[in-house]
Protein backbone atom coordinates (compact mmCIF):
# COMPACT_ATOMS: atom_id res chain seq x y z
CA UNK A 1 0.00 0.00 0.00
CA UNK A 2 1.75 3.12 -1.21
CA UNK A 3 -0.47 5.95 -0.21
CA UNK A 4 1.76 8.80 -1.14
CA UNK A 5 2.92 8.97 -4.67
CA UNK A 6 5.80 10.63 -6.38
CA UNK A 7 3.73 13.34 -8.02
CA UNK A 8 3.99 15.67 -5.09
CA UNK A 9 3.57 19.00 -6.82
CA UNK A 10 0.73 21.37 -6.14
CA UNK A 11 -1.20 21.77 -9.38
CA UNK A 12 -1.02 25.54 -9.39
CA UNK A 13 2.75 25.68 -9.28
CA UNK A 14 3.64 23.52 -12.22
CA UNK A 15 5.89 25.94 -13.94
CA UNK A 16 9.57 25.95 -14.67
CA UNK A 17 11.75 27.68 -12.09
CA UNK A 18 12.51 31.22 -13.09
CA UNK A 19 15.80 33.02 -12.86
CA UNK A 20 16.23 34.90 -9.58
CA UNK A 21 16.11 38.39 -11.02
CA UNK A 22 12.51 38.12 -12.12
CA UNK A 23 10.84 39.80 -9.19
CA UNK A 24 7.61 40.30 -11.07
CA UNK A 25 7.44 36.62 -11.85
CA UNK A 26 7.83 35.75 -8.19
CA UNK A 27 5.17 38.28 -7.25
CA UNK A 28 2.64 37.09 -9.80
CA UNK A 29 3.14 33.38 -9.40
CA UNK A 30 3.42 33.79 -5.64
CA UNK A 31 0.01 35.43 -5.60
CA UNK A 32 -1.47 32.72 -7.77
CA UNK A 33 0.03 30.00 -5.60
CA UNK A 34 -1.20 31.71 -2.45
CA UNK A 35 -4.73 32.02 -3.76
CA UNK A 36 -4.63 28.35 -4.72
CA UNK A 37 -3.55 27.44 -1.19
CA UNK A 38 -6.35 29.59 0.21
CA UNK A 39 -8.83 27.73 -1.99
CA UNK A 40 -7.49 24.40 -0.67
CA UNK A 41 -7.74 25.54 2.90
CA UNK A 42 -10.98 27.50 3.17
CA UNK A 43 -13.21 24.44 3.24
CA UNK A 44 -11.08 22.77 5.89
CA UNK A 45 -11.00 25.97 7.93
CA UNK A 46 -14.76 26.35 7.68
CA UNK A 47 -15.54 22.85 8.89
CA UNK A 48 -13.05 23.06 11.72
CA UNK A 49 -14.10 26.56 12.68
CA UNK A 50 -17.77 25.73 12.98
CA UNK A 51 -17.85 22.19 14.28
CA UNK A 52 -14.28 21.56 15.55
CA UNK A 53 -14.05 18.59 13.21
CA UNK A 54 -10.64 18.15 11.61
CA UNK A 55 -11.87 16.95 8.24
CA UNK A 56 -9.09 14.68 7.05
CA UNK A 57 -11.28 13.62 4.13
CA UNK A 58 -10.90 17.11 2.65
CA UNK A 59 -8.33 16.10 0.05
CA UNK A 60 -10.45 13.13 -0.96
CA UNK A 61 -13.47 15.37 -1.49
CA UNK A 62 -11.29 17.67 -3.58
CA UNK A 63 -10.22 14.86 -5.89
CA UNK A 64 -13.70 13.32 -5.95
CA UNK A 65 -15.26 16.51 -7.28
CA UNK A 66 -12.61 16.62 -10.00
CA UNK A 67 -13.51 13.11 -11.08
CA UNK A 68 -17.23 13.82 -10.88
CA UNK A 69 -16.79 16.82 -13.17
CA UNK A 70 -14.66 14.76 -15.53
CA UNK A 71 -17.30 12.03 -15.64
CA UNK A 72 -20.09 14.51 -16.32
CA UNK A 73 -18.16 16.23 -19.07
CA UNK A 74 -16.62 13.24 -20.80
CA UNK A 75 -18.97 10.34 -20.15
CA UNK A 76 -22.35 12.02 -19.94
CA UNK A 77 -21.36 14.82 -22.39
CA UNK A 78 -22.93 17.54 -20.28
CA UNK A 79 -22.23 21.23 -20.55
CA UNK A 80 -18.97 22.13 -18.74
CA UNK A 81 -20.52 24.78 -16.50
CA UNK A 82 -23.45 22.54 -15.64
CA UNK A 83 -21.13 19.66 -14.75
CA UNK A 84 -19.13 21.96 -12.51
CA UNK A 85 -22.23 23.06 -10.66
CA UNK A 86 -23.47 19.48 -10.40
CA UNK A 87 -20.09 18.32 -9.11
CA UNK A 88 -20.06 21.03 -6.46
CA UNK A 89 -23.55 20.19 -5.30
CA UNK A 90 -22.74 16.48 -5.41
CA UNK A 91 -19.59 16.89 -3.35
CA UNK A 92 -21.49 19.05 -0.89
CA UNK A 93 -24.06 16.30 -0.51
CA UNK A 94 -21.33 13.70 -0.03
CA UNK A 95 -19.82 15.83 2.72
CA UNK A 96 -23.19 16.28 4.39
CA UNK A 97 -23.85 12.53 4.20
CA UNK A 98 -20.47 11.81 5.77
CA UNK A 99 -21.41 14.07 8.63
CA UNK A 100 -24.93 12.73 9.01
CA UNK A 101 -24.04 9.06 9.02
CA UNK A 102 -20.55 8.94 10.49
CA UNK A 103 -19.22 12.04 12.16
CA UNK A 104 -22.35 12.92 14.11
CA UNK A 105 -21.83 9.80 16.20
CA UNK A 106 -18.29 10.61 17.21
CA UNK A 107 -18.28 14.37 17.54
CA UNK A 108 -16.19 15.57 20.43
CA UNK A 109 -13.91 12.53 20.48
CA UNK A 110 -10.90 14.08 18.81
CA UNK A 111 -8.97 10.98 18.01
CA UNK A 112 -11.97 9.13 16.65
CA UNK A 113 -12.74 12.16 14.50
CA UNK A 114 -9.27 12.17 13.00
CA UNK A 115 -9.26 8.42 12.52
CA UNK A 116 -12.75 8.29 11.04
CA UNK A 117 -12.30 11.18 8.60
CA UNK A 118 -8.90 9.88 7.63
CA UNK A 119 -10.36 6.42 7.03
CA UNK A 120 -13.11 7.91 4.88
CA UNK A 121 -10.57 9.90 2.88
CA UNK A 122 -8.39 6.83 2.44
CA UNK A 123 -11.36 4.73 1.35
CA UNK A 124 -12.48 7.33 -1.21
CA UNK A 125 -9.02 7.96 -2.65
CA UNK A 126 -7.91 4.34 -2.83
CA UNK A 127 -11.36 3.40 -4.11
CA UNK A 128 -10.94 5.89 -6.94
CA UNK A 129 -7.48 4.53 -7.66
CA UNK A 130 -8.87 1.00 -7.74
CA UNK A 131 -11.75 2.18 -9.93
CA UNK A 132 -9.26 3.00 -12.64
CA UNK A 133 -8.78 6.71 -12.10
CA UNK A 134 -5.03 6.79 -12.39
CA UNK A 135 -2.43 7.88 -14.82
CA UNK A 136 -2.27 11.13 -16.69
CA UNK A 137 -5.35 10.75 -18.89
CA UNK A 138 -7.77 12.68 -16.73
CA UNK A 139 -7.72 16.38 -17.43
CA UNK A 140 -10.30 19.12 -17.34
CA UNK A 141 -10.33 21.80 -20.02
CA UNK A 142 -9.36 25.33 -19.05
CA UNK A 143 -12.25 27.77 -18.73
CA UNK A 144 -10.62 30.17 -21.16
CA UNK A 145 -7.70 29.09 -23.29
CA UNK A 146 -4.76 31.30 -24.00
CA UNK A 147 -2.49 33.57 -22.05
CA UNK A 148 -1.55 37.17 -21.65
CA UNK A 149 1.39 39.21 -20.42
CA UNK A 150 1.42 41.19 -17.22
CA UNK A 151 4.47 43.40 -16.73
CA UNK A 152 6.45 41.19 -19.03
CA UNK A 153 5.45 37.91 -17.39
CA UNK A 154 3.34 35.50 -19.36
CA UNK A 155 0.35 34.22 -17.39
CA UNK A 156 -2.41 32.07 -18.78
CA UNK A 157 -6.01 33.10 -18.32
CA UNK A 158 -6.86 30.11 -16.16
CA UNK A 159 -4.35 31.23 -13.53
CA UNK A 160 -5.72 34.75 -13.61
CA UNK A 161 -9.16 33.26 -13.20
CA UNK A 162 -7.92 31.35 -10.13
CA UNK A 163 -6.98 34.64 -8.51
CA UNK A 164 -10.27 36.25 -9.48
CA UNK A 165 -12.37 33.35 -8.26
CA UNK A 166 -10.33 33.08 -5.09
CA UNK A 167 -10.92 36.74 -4.30
CA UNK A 168 -14.59 36.36 -5.14
CA UNK A 169 -14.90 33.34 -2.86
CA UNK A 170 -13.31 35.15 0.06
CA UNK A 171 -15.58 38.16 -0.49
CA UNK A 172 -18.65 35.96 -0.87
CA UNK A 173 -17.78 34.05 2.28
CA UNK A 174 -17.42 37.29 4.20
CA UNK A 175 -20.78 38.55 2.98
CA UNK A 176 -22.37 35.15 3.61
CA UNK A 177 -21.17 34.96 7.19
CA UNK A 178 -22.04 38.55 8.00
CA UNK A 179 -25.36 39.15 6.28
CA UNK A 180 -27.27 35.89 5.99
CA UNK A 181 -29.10 34.12 8.77
CA UNK A 182 -27.40 30.79 8.21
CA UNK A 183 -24.02 32.47 7.91
CA UNK A 184 -24.55 34.29 11.18
CA UNK A 185 -25.66 31.04 12.79
CA UNK A 186 -22.46 29.37 11.58
CA UNK A 187 -20.39 32.17 13.08
CA UNK A 188 -22.33 31.91 16.29
CA UNK A 189 -21.52 28.20 16.44
CA UNK A 190 -17.88 28.92 15.77
CA UNK A 191 -17.68 31.43 18.60
CA UNK A 192 -19.50 29.49 21.29
CA UNK A 193 -21.45 26.36 20.55
CA UNK A 194 -23.40 26.25 23.81
CA UNK A 195 -24.43 29.87 23.67
CA UNK A 196 -25.51 29.32 20.09
CA UNK A 197 -27.61 26.36 21.17
CA UNK A 198 -29.26 28.43 23.87
CA UNK A 199 -30.25 30.96 21.25
CA UNK A 200 -32.04 28.25 19.32
CA UNK A 201 -29.39 27.41 16.75
CA UNK A 202 -29.51 23.72 15.91
CA UNK A 203 -25.92 22.69 16.47
CA UNK A 204 -26.08 19.45 14.49
CA UNK A 205 -27.84 21.09 11.58
CA UNK A 206 -25.25 23.85 11.47
CA UNK A 207 -22.38 21.38 11.65
CA UNK A 208 -24.06 19.49 8.81
CA UNK A 209 -24.33 22.72 6.84
CA UNK A 210 -20.70 23.57 7.57
CA UNK A 211 -19.58 20.16 6.34
CA UNK A 212 -21.70 20.58 3.22
CA UNK A 213 -20.41 24.08 2.49
CA UNK A 214 -16.85 23.03 3.34
CA UNK A 215 -17.05 20.17 0.85
CA UNK A 216 -18.48 22.53 -1.76
CA UNK A 217 -15.55 24.85 -1.20
CA UNK A 218 -13.19 21.92 -1.70
CA UNK A 219 -15.06 21.11 -4.91
CA UNK A 220 -14.87 24.71 -6.07
CA UNK A 221 -11.13 24.73 -5.46
CA UNK A 222 -10.85 21.51 -7.42
CA UNK A 223 -12.74 22.62 -10.51
CA UNK A 224 -10.85 25.90 -10.62
CA UNK A 225 -7.39 24.47 -10.03
CA UNK A 226 -7.55 21.07 -11.70
CA UNK A 227 -7.58 22.43 -15.28
CA UNK A 228 -4.00 23.54 -14.58
CA UNK A 229 -2.81 19.95 -14.30
CA UNK A 230 -3.96 16.34 -14.32
CA UNK A 231 -6.50 14.88 -11.96
CA UNK A 232 -4.47 12.40 -9.93
CA UNK A 233 -5.36 10.57 -6.75
CA UNK A 234 -2.10 11.67 -5.09
CA UNK A 235 -3.32 15.26 -5.24
CA UNK A 236 -5.77 14.32 -2.49
CA UNK A 237 -2.98 13.72 -0.01
CA UNK A 238 -1.10 16.84 -1.03
CA UNK A 239 -4.15 19.04 -0.81
CA UNK A 240 -4.88 17.69 2.65
CA UNK A 241 -1.36 18.44 3.86
CA UNK A 242 -1.35 21.91 2.32
CA UNK A 243 -4.79 22.68 3.76
CA UNK A 244 -3.66 21.56 7.20
CA UNK A 245 -0.46 23.58 6.87
CA UNK A 246 -2.36 26.73 5.96
CA UNK A 247 -4.96 26.25 8.68
CA UNK A 248 -2.41 25.56 11.38
CA UNK A 249 -0.17 28.47 10.48
CA UNK A 250 -3.20 30.73 10.31
CA UNK A 251 -4.70 29.31 13.44
CA UNK A 252 -7.23 26.49 13.37
CA UNK A 253 -10.71 27.92 13.10
CA UNK A 254 -9.74 31.36 11.86
CA UNK A 255 -10.69 32.16 8.26
CA UNK A 256 -8.79 35.41 8.01
CA UNK A 257 -5.78 33.67 9.47
CA UNK A 258 -6.13 30.97 6.82
CA UNK A 259 -6.08 33.51 4.00
CA UNK A 260 -3.08 35.29 5.46
CA UNK A 261 -1.23 32.04 6.08
CA UNK A 262 -1.97 30.98 2.52
CA UNK A 263 -0.06 34.04 1.35
CA UNK A 264 2.84 33.41 3.72
CA UNK A 265 3.22 29.76 2.72
CA UNK A 266 2.45 30.50 -0.92
CA UNK A 267 5.22 33.02 -1.26
CA UNK A 268 7.58 30.95 0.84
CA UNK A 269 6.99 28.03 -1.53
CA UNK A 270 7.58 30.08 -4.65
CA UNK A 271 10.75 31.55 -3.18
CA UNK A 272 12.05 28.07 -2.32
CA UNK A 273 11.22 26.83 -5.80
CA UNK A 274 13.14 29.74 -7.31
CA UNK A 275 16.16 29.70 -5.04
CA UNK A 276 16.41 26.10 -3.81
CA UNK A 277 14.55 23.82 -6.19
CA UNK A 278 11.11 22.29 -6.58
CA UNK A 279 11.97 19.38 -4.27
CA UNK A 280 11.76 21.63 -1.25
CA UNK A 281 8.22 22.86 -1.89
CA UNK A 282 6.55 20.31 0.33
CA UNK A 283 9.30 20.59 2.93
CA UNK A 284 8.33 24.25 3.35
CA UNK A 285 4.71 23.37 4.09
CA UNK A 286 5.65 20.60 6.51
CA UNK A 287 8.24 22.74 8.27
CA UNK A 288 5.68 25.54 8.54
CA UNK A 289 3.33 23.17 10.36
CA UNK A 290 5.96 21.91 12.75
CA UNK A 291 7.50 25.29 13.52
CA UNK A 292 4.13 26.95 14.05
CA UNK A 293 2.92 24.18 16.30
CA UNK A 294 6.06 24.34 18.39
CA UNK A 295 6.29 28.12 18.69
CA UNK A 296 2.64 29.17 18.77
CA UNK A 297 0.23 26.27 18.49
CA UNK A 298 -2.77 28.53 18.23
CA UNK A 299 -1.36 29.96 15.00
CA UNK A 300 -1.35 33.57 13.85
CA UNK A 301 -5.03 34.18 14.49
CA UNK A 302 -6.03 31.11 16.44
CA UNK A 303 -9.24 31.25 18.42
CA UNK A 304 -8.24 28.52 20.83
CA UNK A 305 -6.88 29.52 24.16
CA UNK A 306 -3.22 28.77 24.65
CA UNK A 307 -3.93 26.79 27.79
CA UNK A 308 -6.16 24.32 26.03
CA UNK A 309 -3.59 23.11 23.62
CA UNK A 310 -0.41 22.97 25.62
CA UNK A 311 0.61 22.44 29.16
Amino acid at each position, binding site marked *: *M*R*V*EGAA*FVAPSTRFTPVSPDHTMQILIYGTINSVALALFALGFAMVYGVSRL*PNFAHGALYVTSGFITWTFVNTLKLNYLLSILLAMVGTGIIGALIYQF*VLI*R*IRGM*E*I*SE*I*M*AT*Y*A*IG*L*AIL*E*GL*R*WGGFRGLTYTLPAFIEGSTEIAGVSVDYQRLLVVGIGAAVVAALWLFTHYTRIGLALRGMAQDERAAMMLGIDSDLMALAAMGFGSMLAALGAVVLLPLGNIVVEAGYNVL*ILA*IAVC*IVGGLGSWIGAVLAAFIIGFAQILTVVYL*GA*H*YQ*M*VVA*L*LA*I*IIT*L*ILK*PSGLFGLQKEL*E*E*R*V
Partner: protein
Amino acid sequence: MNASKEQRRKERLDRGIKVRSESIYALMSWRELSYLFLPRFVLIGGLLMLPLVMPSMYWQRVISIVCIYALLALSFDFLAHYVGLVSLGGAFFIGTGSYIAAILNTSFGLSPIFTIPIATLLGAAICTVLLLPCLPLRGVYFAIVTLMYPLLFARVIEALDILGGTDGIMGIESFANRWMEQYFIIAMVLILLFGTRRLVNQDIGLVFRAVKDNDQSVRASGMSVTYYKSIAVFIAAAIGCLAGAYLVHLYMWAGLSTLALDFSILPIAATVIGGSGTLVGPVLGAFILVPISELLRAFGTLRIVFYALILLAFIIFRSEGIMVYGQRKYHQFEKWIKV
Protein backbone atom coordinates in the same frame (compact mmCIF):
# COMPACT_ATOMS: atom_id res chain seq x y z
CA MET B 1 -45.78 -6.67 27.47
CA ASN B 2 -44.33 -4.09 25.15
CA ALA B 3 -40.58 -4.37 25.23
CA SER B 4 -39.91 -0.98 23.77
CA LYS B 5 -41.72 0.86 26.55
CA GLU B 6 -40.06 -1.07 29.28
CA GLN B 7 -36.83 0.51 30.51
CA ARG B 8 -34.05 -1.99 30.78
CA ARG B 9 -30.38 -1.85 31.38
CA LYS B 10 -27.61 -4.36 31.40
CA GLU B 11 -26.25 -5.19 34.79
CA ARG B 12 -22.73 -6.48 35.00
CA LEU B 13 -21.23 -8.31 37.92
CA ASP B 14 -17.73 -9.66 38.31
CA ARG B 15 -17.56 -13.39 38.39
CA GLY B 16 -16.68 -14.86 41.75
CA ILE B 17 -13.72 -16.63 40.30
CA LYS B 18 -12.29 -13.34 39.04
CA VAL B 19 -12.48 -11.80 42.49
CA ARG B 20 -10.97 -14.89 44.10
CA SER B 21 -8.14 -15.15 41.66
CA GLU B 22 -7.07 -11.55 42.09
CA SER B 23 -4.96 -12.06 45.18
CA ILE B 24 -3.32 -14.87 47.13
CA TYR B 25 -6.57 -16.84 46.90
CA ALA B 26 -5.58 -17.61 43.36
CA LEU B 27 -3.63 -20.46 44.89
CA MET B 28 -6.81 -21.96 46.34
CA SER B 29 -7.40 -24.47 43.62
CA TRP B 30 -6.36 -25.52 40.16
CA ARG B 31 -9.52 -23.95 38.83
CA GLU B 32 -8.56 -20.47 40.00
CA LEU B 33 -5.02 -20.95 38.80
CA SER B 34 -6.14 -22.08 35.39
CA TYR B 35 -8.61 -19.18 35.20
CA LEU B 36 -5.64 -16.87 35.61
CA PHE B 37 -3.21 -18.72 33.41
CA LEU B 38 -5.39 -19.87 30.56
CA PRO B 39 -5.50 -16.56 28.65
CA ARG B 40 -1.78 -15.99 29.12
CA PHE B 41 -1.00 -19.54 28.13
CA VAL B 42 -3.12 -19.27 24.99
CA LEU B 43 -1.33 -16.07 24.03
CA ILE B 44 2.22 -17.22 24.74
CA GLY B 45 1.73 -20.76 23.49
CA GLY B 46 -0.11 -19.58 20.43
CA LEU B 47 2.58 -17.09 19.48
CA LEU B 48 5.38 -19.60 20.00
CA MET B 49 3.54 -22.23 17.96
CA LEU B 50 2.79 -19.93 15.04
CA PRO B 51 6.02 -20.34 13.02
CA LEU B 52 5.75 -24.12 13.36
CA VAL B 53 2.22 -24.38 12.01
CA MET B 54 2.66 -21.95 9.14
CA PRO B 55 2.40 -23.81 5.83
CA SER B 56 5.01 -21.96 3.83
CA MET B 57 7.94 -19.57 3.92
CA TYR B 58 5.60 -16.90 2.65
CA TRP B 59 3.32 -17.15 5.65
CA GLN B 60 6.26 -17.27 8.01
CA ARG B 61 7.36 -13.99 6.50
CA VAL B 62 3.85 -12.67 7.08
CA ILE B 63 4.17 -13.60 10.76
CA SER B 64 7.31 -11.49 11.01
CA ILE B 65 5.53 -8.55 9.43
CA VAL B 66 2.55 -9.03 11.71
CA CYS B 67 4.90 -8.87 14.68
CA ILE B 68 6.40 -5.61 13.41
CA TYR B 69 2.95 -4.08 13.23
CA ALA B 70 2.08 -5.58 16.60
CA LEU B 71 5.07 -3.83 18.17
CA LEU B 72 4.07 -0.54 16.57
CA ALA B 73 0.49 -0.94 17.71
CA LEU B 74 1.73 -1.69 21.21
CA SER B 75 3.82 1.45 21.18
CA PHE B 76 0.88 3.52 19.91
CA ASP B 77 -1.47 2.11 22.52
CA PHE B 78 0.99 2.71 25.33
CA LEU B 79 1.59 6.31 24.28
CA ALA B 80 -2.00 7.16 23.47
CA HIS B 81 -3.91 5.48 26.26
CA TYR B 82 -1.47 5.55 29.14
CA VAL B 83 0.30 8.87 28.56
CA GLY B 84 -2.29 10.69 26.47
CA LEU B 85 0.03 11.45 23.55
CA VAL B 86 -1.69 10.35 20.36
CA SER B 87 1.19 9.82 17.98
CA LEU B 88 0.26 9.33 14.34
CA GLY B 89 3.94 9.04 13.49
CA GLY B 90 4.65 5.34 13.85
CA ALA B 91 6.44 5.53 10.51
CA PHE B 92 8.87 8.03 11.99
CA PHE B 93 10.01 5.50 14.60
CA ILE B 94 10.23 2.72 12.02
CA GLY B 95 12.13 4.96 9.61
CA THR B 96 14.64 6.16 12.19
CA GLY B 97 15.30 2.65 13.47
CA SER B 98 15.66 1.17 10.03
CA TYR B 99 17.99 3.83 8.65
CA ILE B 100 20.25 3.64 11.69
CA ALA B 101 20.42 -0.14 11.50
CA ALA B 102 21.07 0.05 7.76
CA ILE B 103 23.92 2.53 8.17
CA LEU B 104 25.47 0.59 11.03
CA ASN B 105 25.35 -2.59 8.97
CA THR B 106 26.57 -1.28 5.62
CA SER B 107 29.06 1.38 6.74
CA PHE B 108 30.42 -0.17 9.93
CA GLY B 109 29.86 -3.81 9.12
CA LEU B 110 28.15 -4.63 12.40
CA SER B 111 26.06 -7.79 12.52
CA PRO B 112 22.33 -7.74 13.42
CA ILE B 113 23.17 -8.76 16.98
CA PHE B 114 24.72 -5.34 17.47
CA THR B 115 22.81 -3.18 15.02
CA ILE B 116 19.39 -3.95 16.47
CA PRO B 117 20.12 -2.95 20.07
CA ILE B 118 22.13 0.09 19.01
CA ALA B 119 19.47 1.20 16.52
CA THR B 120 16.81 0.71 19.17
CA LEU B 121 18.47 2.88 21.80
CA LEU B 122 20.07 5.44 19.50
CA GLY B 123 16.92 5.72 17.39
CA ALA B 124 14.77 6.15 20.48
CA ALA B 125 17.10 8.88 21.73
CA ILE B 126 17.01 10.68 18.37
CA CYS B 127 13.22 10.43 18.14
CA THR B 128 12.82 11.71 21.68
CA VAL B 129 15.11 14.67 21.06
CA LEU B 130 13.33 15.54 17.82
CA LEU B 131 9.90 15.23 19.40
CA LEU B 132 10.94 17.13 22.52
CA PRO B 133 9.78 20.55 21.25
CA CYS B 134 6.30 19.14 20.51
CA LEU B 135 5.79 17.52 23.89
CA PRO B 136 3.89 20.45 25.40
CA LEU B 137 1.26 20.01 22.70
CA ARG B 138 -1.91 18.12 23.37
CA GLY B 139 -4.66 16.28 21.55
CA VAL B 140 -5.15 16.99 17.89
CA TYR B 141 -2.11 19.29 17.70
CA PHE B 142 0.31 16.58 18.80
CA ALA B 143 -1.40 14.13 16.47
CA ILE B 144 -0.98 16.38 13.44
CA VAL B 145 2.62 17.30 14.18
CA THR B 146 3.62 13.66 14.60
CA LEU B 147 1.81 12.79 11.38
CA MET B 148 3.99 15.38 9.60
CA TYR B 149 7.35 14.14 10.92
CA PRO B 150 7.72 11.03 8.73
CA LEU B 151 6.49 12.95 5.68
CA LEU B 152 9.05 15.67 6.31
CA PHE B 153 11.79 13.10 6.92
CA ALA B 154 10.96 11.43 3.58
CA ARG B 155 10.88 14.74 1.67
CA VAL B 156 14.21 15.82 3.16
CA ILE B 157 15.85 12.53 2.21
CA GLU B 158 14.42 12.90 -1.28
CA ALA B 159 15.41 16.54 -1.69
CA LEU B 160 18.93 16.28 -0.29
CA ASP B 161 19.50 12.85 -1.83
CA ILE B 162 21.10 11.61 1.37
CA LEU B 163 20.88 8.12 2.91
CA GLY B 164 20.58 6.52 -0.49
CA GLY B 165 17.94 8.97 -1.69
CA THR B 166 14.97 7.43 -3.43
CA ASP B 167 16.82 4.17 -4.07
CA GLY B 168 17.38 3.42 -0.41
CA ILE B 169 20.22 1.52 1.18
CA MET B 170 20.75 -1.94 -0.21
CA GLY B 171 22.85 -4.98 0.61
CA ILE B 172 22.03 -5.33 4.28
CA GLU B 173 22.85 -8.54 6.07
CA SER B 174 19.95 -10.83 6.92
CA PHE B 175 19.50 -13.07 9.94
CA ALA B 176 21.54 -16.23 10.36
CA ASN B 177 18.56 -18.51 9.81
CA ARG B 178 14.84 -18.19 9.53
CA TRP B 179 14.04 -19.72 12.92
CA MET B 180 16.12 -17.08 14.61
CA GLU B 181 14.43 -14.49 12.44
CA GLN B 182 10.99 -15.68 13.53
CA TYR B 183 11.56 -16.35 17.19
CA PHE B 184 13.53 -13.20 17.81
CA ILE B 185 10.61 -10.97 16.92
CA ILE B 186 8.03 -13.20 18.60
CA ALA B 187 10.06 -13.16 21.79
CA MET B 188 10.36 -9.41 21.52
CA VAL B 189 6.60 -9.01 21.13
CA LEU B 190 5.98 -11.14 24.22
CA ILE B 191 8.67 -9.51 26.34
CA LEU B 192 7.62 -5.98 25.43
CA LEU B 193 3.94 -6.75 25.81
CA PHE B 194 4.31 -8.10 29.32
CA GLY B 195 7.00 -5.53 30.08
CA THR B 196 4.85 -2.53 29.23
CA ARG B 197 1.92 -4.08 31.05
CA ARG B 198 4.05 -4.37 34.14
CA LEU B 199 5.46 -0.88 33.63
CA VAL B 200 2.08 0.83 33.55
CA ASN B 201 1.21 -0.76 36.87
CA GLN B 202 4.37 0.55 38.53
CA ASP B 203 4.57 3.94 40.19
CA ILE B 204 5.81 5.52 37.00
CA GLY B 205 2.79 4.14 35.20
CA LEU B 206 0.60 5.92 37.69
CA VAL B 207 2.37 9.18 36.89
CA PHE B 208 1.93 8.49 33.17
CA ARG B 209 -1.79 8.09 33.62
CA ALA B 210 -1.90 11.21 35.74
CA VAL B 211 -0.19 13.08 32.89
CA LYS B 212 -2.94 11.83 30.63
CA ASP B 213 -5.86 12.61 32.91
CA ASN B 214 -4.77 15.81 34.59
CA ASP B 215 -1.34 17.15 33.82
CA GLN B 216 -1.83 20.20 36.00
CA SER B 217 -2.09 17.98 39.05
CA VAL B 218 1.19 16.31 38.10
CA ARG B 219 2.80 19.69 37.84
CA ALA B 220 1.24 20.74 41.14
CA SER B 221 2.87 17.69 42.73
CA GLY B 222 6.26 19.05 41.78
CA MET B 223 6.88 16.65 38.94
CA SER B 224 7.95 17.74 35.49
CA VAL B 225 5.29 16.79 32.95
CA THR B 226 7.73 17.11 30.06
CA TYR B 227 10.21 14.81 31.80
CA TYR B 228 7.67 12.03 32.16
CA LYS B 229 6.34 12.58 28.67
CA SER B 230 9.85 12.30 27.25
CA ILE B 231 10.46 9.05 29.14
CA ALA B 232 7.23 7.67 27.71
CA VAL B 233 8.14 8.82 24.20
CA PHE B 234 11.56 7.21 24.63
CA ILE B 235 9.96 3.87 25.54
CA ALA B 236 7.45 4.03 22.70
CA ALA B 237 10.11 5.15 20.22
CA ALA B 238 12.41 2.34 21.36
CA ILE B 239 9.69 -0.21 20.61
CA GLY B 240 9.11 1.37 17.19
CA CYS B 241 12.82 1.62 16.36
CA LEU B 242 13.33 -2.02 17.34
CA ALA B 243 10.63 -2.97 14.88
CA GLY B 244 12.27 -0.75 12.25
CA ALA B 245 15.73 -2.23 12.78
CA TYR B 246 14.31 -5.73 12.54
CA LEU B 247 12.42 -4.79 9.38
CA VAL B 248 15.64 -3.70 7.70
CA HIS B 249 17.33 -7.00 8.36
CA LEU B 250 14.21 -8.85 7.26
CA TYR B 251 13.95 -7.07 3.91
CA MET B 252 17.72 -6.49 3.60
CA TRP B 253 16.82 -2.99 2.39
CA ALA B 254 16.05 0.39 3.90
CA GLY B 255 14.28 3.04 1.92
CA LEU B 256 11.62 5.68 1.78
CA SER B 257 8.85 3.11 2.08
CA THR B 258 9.81 2.60 5.73
CA LEU B 259 8.42 6.12 6.19
CA ALA B 260 5.19 5.37 4.36
CA LEU B 261 1.85 6.02 5.94
CA ASP B 262 1.11 2.28 6.38
CA PHE B 263 3.28 2.24 9.45
CA SER B 264 1.36 5.12 10.94
CA ILE B 265 -2.15 4.04 10.05
CA LEU B 266 -2.27 0.27 10.28
CA PRO B 267 -1.12 0.07 13.92
CA ILE B 268 -3.82 2.56 14.85
CA ALA B 269 -6.42 0.51 13.04
CA ALA B 270 -5.11 -2.55 14.88
CA THR B 271 -5.42 -0.72 18.18
CA VAL B 272 -8.97 0.40 17.50
CA ILE B 273 -10.03 -3.07 16.45
CA GLY B 274 -8.16 -4.92 19.16
CA GLY B 275 -9.28 -2.69 21.99
CA SER B 276 -7.57 0.49 23.04
CA GLY B 277 -5.90 0.68 26.38
CA THR B 278 -5.52 -3.05 26.85
CA LEU B 279 -1.99 -3.39 25.39
CA VAL B 280 -2.70 -6.98 24.37
CA GLY B 281 -5.62 -5.86 22.21
CA PRO B 282 -3.46 -4.00 19.67
CA VAL B 283 -1.24 -7.07 19.29
CA LEU B 284 -4.35 -9.14 18.64
CA GLY B 285 -5.62 -6.50 16.23
CA ALA B 286 -2.39 -6.68 14.25
CA PHE B 287 -2.73 -10.46 14.08
CA ILE B 288 -6.19 -10.02 12.60
CA LEU B 289 -5.63 -7.09 10.26
CA VAL B 290 -2.29 -7.85 8.64
CA PRO B 291 -3.14 -11.40 7.47
CA ILE B 292 -6.45 -10.07 6.10
CA SER B 293 -4.55 -7.45 4.20
CA GLU B 294 -2.19 -10.16 2.89
CA LEU B 295 -5.12 -12.28 1.75
CA LEU B 296 -6.56 -9.28 -0.07
CA ARG B 297 -3.29 -8.53 -1.80
CA ALA B 298 -4.74 -9.68 -5.11
CA PHE B 299 -7.29 -6.88 -5.02
CA GLY B 300 -4.66 -4.16 -5.17
CA THR B 301 -5.62 -0.89 -3.57
CA LEU B 302 -9.10 -2.19 -2.86
CA ARG B 303 -7.72 -3.75 0.30
CA ILE B 304 -6.92 -0.30 1.66
CA VAL B 305 -10.53 0.63 1.05
CA PHE B 306 -11.48 -2.55 2.81
CA TYR B 307 -9.63 -1.92 5.98
CA ALA B 308 -10.43 1.75 6.01
CA LEU B 309 -14.05 0.65 6.09
CA ILE B 310 -13.40 -1.98 8.77
CA LEU B 311 -11.68 0.70 10.83
CA LEU B 312 -14.58 3.08 10.29
CA ALA B 313 -17.12 0.47 11.31
CA PHE B 314 -15.20 -0.30 14.49
CA ILE B 315 -14.81 3.39 15.38
CA ILE B 316 -18.52 3.98 14.98
CA PHE B 317 -20.16 0.80 16.17
CA ARG B 318 -17.69 -1.04 18.40
CA SER B 319 -15.28 1.57 19.64
CA GLU B 320 -14.36 -0.60 22.65
CA GLY B 321 -12.63 -3.19 20.47
CA ILE B 322 -12.44 -6.96 20.57
CA MET B 323 -10.24 -7.33 23.63
CA VAL B 324 -12.30 -5.14 25.94
CA TYR B 325 -15.38 -7.04 24.82
CA GLY B 326 -13.64 -10.36 25.39
CA GLN B 327 -12.35 -9.37 28.80
CA ARG B 328 -15.82 -8.32 29.83
CA LYS B 329 -17.31 -11.61 28.78
CA TYR B 330 -14.53 -13.50 30.53
CA HIS B 331 -14.69 -11.62 33.80
CA GLN B 332 -18.33 -10.67 34.20
CA PHE B 333 -21.90 -11.92 34.21
CA GLU B 334 -24.33 -9.88 32.25
CA LYS B 335 -28.07 -9.77 32.62
CA TRP B 336 -30.86 -7.44 31.71
CA ILE B 337 -32.71 -5.86 34.61
CA LYS B 338 -35.67 -3.57 34.78
CA VAL B 339 -35.02 -0.02 35.83
